[in-house]
């Protein structure tokens, strides 16, 4: 007989409006009457092979398809083939993967034997791309040149040029996964980023190299990274305050950092359930360079679906920058707070220590948010476009300040608890694919300290990471 079953390709990860990959449940296998006979029948997978390989090395792929051999009934074969197909696709080296399951042919064919064939189309040697990207309240055009599968084992070489409203950058990056364990990978990067930050009247150019090792451990994802960056700071405009002028010049940062991420959410943009825990620490100065500090920051988010399709979400962020030695901290290392993606109702990064209207950032901060997301009232456009929008009630609070490290932790906690800024309001959120979200909020800022710049009333925000 001919082909029994051929799976349609599922949409790949990427920016698209409409149906989201993670909203789709795993496809139900059609239960036709004649297949009931086969459901419980034992089968043996005799051959699994991959057609259409060019430069990809076979040994890389044997790991991904190995599971299929262990299936022992038809439903299992189909499920494991589907999983193997997903694994092949996530390597990022194939444009298309189709699965054919057929009865065994040939001399050594068993009566209940099956042949599984993966028909793959490799990506071209070099692909170009043009995207627009949304960062935190900034947009950029990104031109990319990618060489997927450079040496045949899913290595990827990417060159990217990005021109944005606040930053211009270009960079070269080489990514190599471990064969058989795609989640364990190493990447090397070289980049130059130039940014302009009008809230601080500061211009910053960073030229850096980094090496990063990522691997999963139990339920977490760990990343170890070394980074060396040459930072050049300068004043933006003639009216920069003297505090910013004081920070101008060159410095070298060589740091080791570690990050741990546990993400059980169903989506990173407007999740309905699950939680996120992200802990990051960076130690600079012990591998060379001028900057010497220890930087810690964390991010926690919890989500729960309530009645009537509404979601309650709580998040907490915090960070601490601890300098070593006598030198003061550099503005390029400090934290900033405020804006449509953190404490709404305040202008972008316009909170905390400042001098003549230029915000200097702070060495310690915390910020928390409580949100209630509900479907739009009266549910217009239900089932289609209307599902991308949510109404959103929020409460944000936080503080950003400098600490005198001679005092003890009691004094620090007290300082972070004084002068808390907070805000509340409501708005509309639009989800952009799986990548970004737009918000239009009406905000009421409270606890405003002198020197903070507020944006009470309507505030628009676009980004990928929101408090």
């Amino acid at each position: 007989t001919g082909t029994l079953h051929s799976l349609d390709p599922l949409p790949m990860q990427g920016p698209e409006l409409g149906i989201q990959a993670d909203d789709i449940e795993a496809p139900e296998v059609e239960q036709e009457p004649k297949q009931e006979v086969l459901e419980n029948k034992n089968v043996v997978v005799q051959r699994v092979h991959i057609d259409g390989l060019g430069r990809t090395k076979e040994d890389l792929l044997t790991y991904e398809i190995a599971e299929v051999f262990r299936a022992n009934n038809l439903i299992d074969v189909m499920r494991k083939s589907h999983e193997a197909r997903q694994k092949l696709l996530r390597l990022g080296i194939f444009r298309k993967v189709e699965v054919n399951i057929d009865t065994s042919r040939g001399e050594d064919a068993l009566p209940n034997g099956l042949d599984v064939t993966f028909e793959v189309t490799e990506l071209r040697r070099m692909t170009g791309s043009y995207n627009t990207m949304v960062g935190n309240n900034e947009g950029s055009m990104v031109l990319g040149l990618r060489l997927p599968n450079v040496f045949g084992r899913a290595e990827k070489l990417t060159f990217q040029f990005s021109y944005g409203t606040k930053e211009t950058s270009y960079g070269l990056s080489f990514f190599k996964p471990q064969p058989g364990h795609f989640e364990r990978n190493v990447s090397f990067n070289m980049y130059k980023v130039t940014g302009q930050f009008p809230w601080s009247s500061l211009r910053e150019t960073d030229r850096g190299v980094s090496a990063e090792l990522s691997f999963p451990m139990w339920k977490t994802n760990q990343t170890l990274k070394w980074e060396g960056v040459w930072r050049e700071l300068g004043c933006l405009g003639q009216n920069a305050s003297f505090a910013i002028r004081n920070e101008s010049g060159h410095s070298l940062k060589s740091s080791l950092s570690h990050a741990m991420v546990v993400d059980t959410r169903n989506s990173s943009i407007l999740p309905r359930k699950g939680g996120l825990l992200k802990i990051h620490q960076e130690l600079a100065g012990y591998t060379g360079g001028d900057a010497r500090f220890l930087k810690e920051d964390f991010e926690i988010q919890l989500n729960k679906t309530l009645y009537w399709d509404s979601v309650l979400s709580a998040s907490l962020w915090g960070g601490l920058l601890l300098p070593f030695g006598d030198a003061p901290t550099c503005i390029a290392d400090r934290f900033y707070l405020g804006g449509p993606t953190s404490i709404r109702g305040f202008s972008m990064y316009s909170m905390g220590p400042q001098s003549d209207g230029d915000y200097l950032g702070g060495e310690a901060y915390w910020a928390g948010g409580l949100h209630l997301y509900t479907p739009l009232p009266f549910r217009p456009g239900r089932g289609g476009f209307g599902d991308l929008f949510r109404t959103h009630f929020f409460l944000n609070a936080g503080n950003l300040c400098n600490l005198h490290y001679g005092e003890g932790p009691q004094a620090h906690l007290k300082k972070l608890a004084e002068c808390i800024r907070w805000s509340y309001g409501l708005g509309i959120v639009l989800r952009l694919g799986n990548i970004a979200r737009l918000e239009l909020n009406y905000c009421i800022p409270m606890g405003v300290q002198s020197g903070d710049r507020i944006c009470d009333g309507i505030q628009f925000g676009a980004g990928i990471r929101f408090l």
Partner: protein
Amino acid sequence: MSLAAEAFVSQLAAAEPWPENATLYQPLKEDQILLSDHASSLAVQAYLRMCGLPVQVLCRVNSEFMSPSGKIPFIHVGNQVVSELGPIVQFTKAKGHSLSDGLDDVQRAEMKAYMELVNNMLLTAELYIQWCDDATAAEISRPRYSSPYSWPLSKILAYQKQWEVRRKMNAIGWGGKTLQQVYEDVSQCCQALSQRLGMQPYFFNKQPTELDALVFGHLFTILTTRLTSSELAERVKSYSNLLSFCRRIEQTYFEDKSS
């Protein structure tokens, strides 16, 4: 500065008297500052002392990058930041302090001409010797310029500065000169200054002007800075009236200064 910018700065400057906490910024004296920067800084310090304006000298590693024009020295007075001798003279004039008010137009033109001579000859020669002479660049200039930074940033910044200065030297036609030619130029410049000074205490007889401050800054620095060879200092020393001029200004205005 453009005329409009000058007028604007003058308006702002005139509003407030000279504060007590005026500061002058330059690179670190012991380890970092180079001959040309030290000369420029000393010229400004001498000028301010001659005007009787108090200023505190602060040494900062990044003073070159803090300066609005990228050049040393600059002063921070009240809310304003002004760099280089020319604009600083304008700035103090707007506040009502000037050393050249007593000069007539002919003398003022002469003063400007001699200041141009010093900037075009002496300052350029100092830059040439520091960065275009391989021995001096390798032994003194690059190590000193890069001393506050760690490797490899130190190397990158030192070579970047060297390329920048050499490009500028080529652009103004000094790229093809030899060291001896540069020393000759210095001698000629000193001769012109020596002739103009004659036996007078200052260039314009009894009262010092900004020209005196500028010449003092450069000559004194040349005389007291150790380079790979002492030829530059020797050339200046051969003009005895310039030597006594420097000594006189040092004793009159810098006697409290510890070397």
